[in-house]
C-alpha cells in the first residue's frame, strides 16, 4: 500500500512539473501550447537513450531539459509571427510530428517496440528505499520549479509576461519587445516538460511512442483548467484531481466486471472531453481561479 502511494506520488509530481510549464506558458503568458507532450517525449527519449549508452543520469537529465528547450526555440520564433489560434495548431502538429519521428526512426528509438530496460534512478539503493529517494528527488525538483514560477510571476518579468497575455500592443507601445519574452517563456516551459519526461522514462523504465499521444497534453490542460488558469496553486490542485480521476478510472475497471481496457480508455477520453467542455463553459476560472480578473 505504501509502495502504491509512493508510485502515485511520483506520477502526480511528474504531472505537476508538466502543468507548471504550461502554467508559465499559457496561464501567465497566454501562449496556447497544444503540443506539450512533444517536449515531454523529447525529454523522455533523450534521457533514456543517453542513459542506455552509459551516460550518467545527471548529464542525461540535463540533456533532456536542454534538448526539449532547444526544440521549443524554433517554435517560439514561429509563434511570434502568428495569431494565438494558429500557434495552437502549429504546436499540436509539432507534437504529432515528434511522435511520428520517434515511431519511424527505429534505428535510434527502436520504433513501436519502444525502449525497454531504462536504468532507474538510485538503482544502488534497491527496492523501496530507491522509490522513496525518487519521490524525494521529484518533489525537490517540483518545489524548485514552483518556487521559480512563483518568483517569476511576482517579478517585473512576470508582470511583463502577464501584460503580454492581457494586451500585447500596450506592451509594445511601452517599448518592450514581447517577442524575446515569449521565446524565453516557451523554452523554459519546454525544458520543464523535458525534465518531467526524463523522470517519467527512468521511473517507468520502458517507453513506447504510444505513451506520448496528444491526450497527455490535454490531461495537463484539463489539470490547469480545473485548478485555475494562471495560478501555481491551481496547477497543483488540478493535478491532484487529475490523478484521482486517472487512478479512479483504473479502480473502477477492476471493480466493474466485463469492461475491457480499450473500453475504459474510451470512457476516460470521453470524460476528459466532457470535463474540458463543462469547465470552459461553466467555470472557466477553475476551482482556485483568480476571481478578481475578467
Amino acid at each position, binding site marked *: 500500500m505504501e509502495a502504491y502511494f509512493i508510485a502515485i506520488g511520483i506520477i502526480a509530481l511528474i504531472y505537476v512539473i508538466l502543468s507548471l510549464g504550461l502554467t508559465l506558458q499559457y496561464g501567465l503568458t497566454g501562449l496556447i501550447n497544444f503540443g506539450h507532450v512533444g517536449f515531454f517525449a523529447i525529454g523522455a527519449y533523450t534521457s533514456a537513450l543517453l542513459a542506455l549508452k552509459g551516460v550518467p543520469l545527471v548529464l542525461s537529465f540535463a540533456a533532456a531539459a536542454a534538448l526539449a528547450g532547444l526544440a521549443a526555440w524554433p517554435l517560439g520564433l514561429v509563434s511570434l509571427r502568428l495569431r494565438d*489560434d494558429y500557434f495552437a495548431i502549429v504546436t499540436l502538429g509539432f507534437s504529432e510530428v515528434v511522435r*511520428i519521428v520517434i515511431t519511424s526512426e527505429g534505428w535510434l528509438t527502436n520504433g513501436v517496440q519502444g525502449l525497454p530496460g531504462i536504468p532507474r534512478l538510485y538503482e544502488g539503493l534497491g527496492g523501496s528505499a530507491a522509490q522513496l529517494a525518487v519521490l524525494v528527488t521529484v518533489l525537490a525538483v517540483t518545489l524548485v520549479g514552483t518556487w521559480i514560477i512563483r518568483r517569476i510571476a511576482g517579478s517585473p518579468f512576470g508582470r511583463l509576461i502577464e501584460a503580454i497575455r492581457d494586451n500585447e500592443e500596450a506592451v509594445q507601445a511601452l517599448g518592450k519587445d514581447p517577442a524575446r519574452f515569449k521565446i524565453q517563456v516557451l523554452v523554459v516551459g519546454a525544458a520543464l516538460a523535458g525534465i518531467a519526461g526524463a523522470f517519467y522514462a527512468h521511473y517507468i523504465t520502458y517507453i513506447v511512442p504510444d505513451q506520448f499521444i496528444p491526450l497527455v497534453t*490535454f490531461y495537463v490542460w484539463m489539470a490547469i483548467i480545473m485548478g485555475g488558469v494562471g495560478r501555481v496553486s491551481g496547477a497543483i490542485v488540478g493535478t491532484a484531481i487529475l490523478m484521482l480521476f486517472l487512478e479512479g478510472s483504473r479502480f473502477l475497471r477492476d471493480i466493474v466486471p466485463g469492461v475491457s481496457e480499450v473500453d475504459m480508455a474510451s470512457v476516460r*477520453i*470521453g470524460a476528459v*472531453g466532457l470535463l474540458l*467542455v463543462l469547465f470552459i*463553459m461553466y467555470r472557466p476560472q477553475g476551482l482556485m481561479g483568480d476571481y478578481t480578473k475578467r
Partner: protein
Amino acid sequence: MFYAQLLVNGLVQGLVIGLAALSITLVFGIARFPNAATGDFMTFGAYSALSAHKVTGSIAMGGLAAIIATGVISLLAYLAVFRRLAERSVVALLVASIGIAFFIRAVLGVAFGHSQQVFQVPLSRPYVFGSVRITPLDLQLALVALAALALVFAILYLTPIGRQMRAVADNRDLARVSGIRPDRVMIALWLLAGSVAGIAGMMLGIKTIVTPEFGWEMLLPAFTAGILGGIGSPVGAVVAGLILGVVQEVSTPFVGFTYKIALAFIIMLAVLLVRPRGLFGRLEGAR
C-alpha cells in the same frame, strides 16, 4: 509511368483532404476559430455511413446517412457548446472543440469497438489508360466528391443563405447592420460544415480502414490545406487539398509512407512563415 499513377491516387486523396479543409475553412471564416473536432466529425460520418451501408447494402444510402447524421451532430455541437462560447476568447472555443472531439471519439469507441472496420465494396477491374490504372471505385468516389463540392458551392454562391454566410465571413458587423440574422447563418454553417466533413469521412473510410482515431489523423493535413488555400476561401481549400494530396503521394517514394503527415506540417509552417494568407486568402491573416 509510375508518377502518373501516384498523381491519380493523390487526386482522390486530395479530394478527401479538400473536403475536410473546406469544412475547416468555412467554420474558421465565419465562426472565427479552428475547429479541432473536424477530424472526429469525419470519423462520425464514416461510422454513420458504415452502419447505413450494412443495413441497406447501398453506398448511396451510406453517403446520405453520413451527410445527415454528421450535419446534425455538428449542429448539436454548435447549439450546445459553441454558440454559448461565441463571445469568449478563441482559446475557449479551441479547447471546447478538442473536448467535443474527444467526446465523439469516446462514444464511437464504445458504440462500435476499436477493431478496424472496412466497407464491403465489390472488387472490380480497373480501367487501364496506358500505364495508369483507375479503379471504378476511385472514379465513383471522385464523382461523389465533385458532386458534393458542386452542391456546396451552389449553396454558397447561388442561394440567399450562402450569400449571407459569405457576408458574415467578410465582415460580421456590416452583415449584422445589413439585417442578416446571425442565428440562421450559424445554423446553416454548422449543418454544412458537418455534412461536408461527414462525406469526407465516408470517402476516407472507403479508401482505407475505419477506426475511432482515423479522422483525428486527418486533422493536420486538413488544417494545412485550409491554411495553404487561405483561411475563409472555399475554393482555396479545395485547390490546396488537391495540391497537398498529390504532393503527399508523389513524395512517398522519397520520404516514406509514415512521413506524409510530417510533410503536411512542414508545408503548413512554410506557408505560415512565407505567405500566411495562403493562395487565395484575404489580407487579414495569420499574424
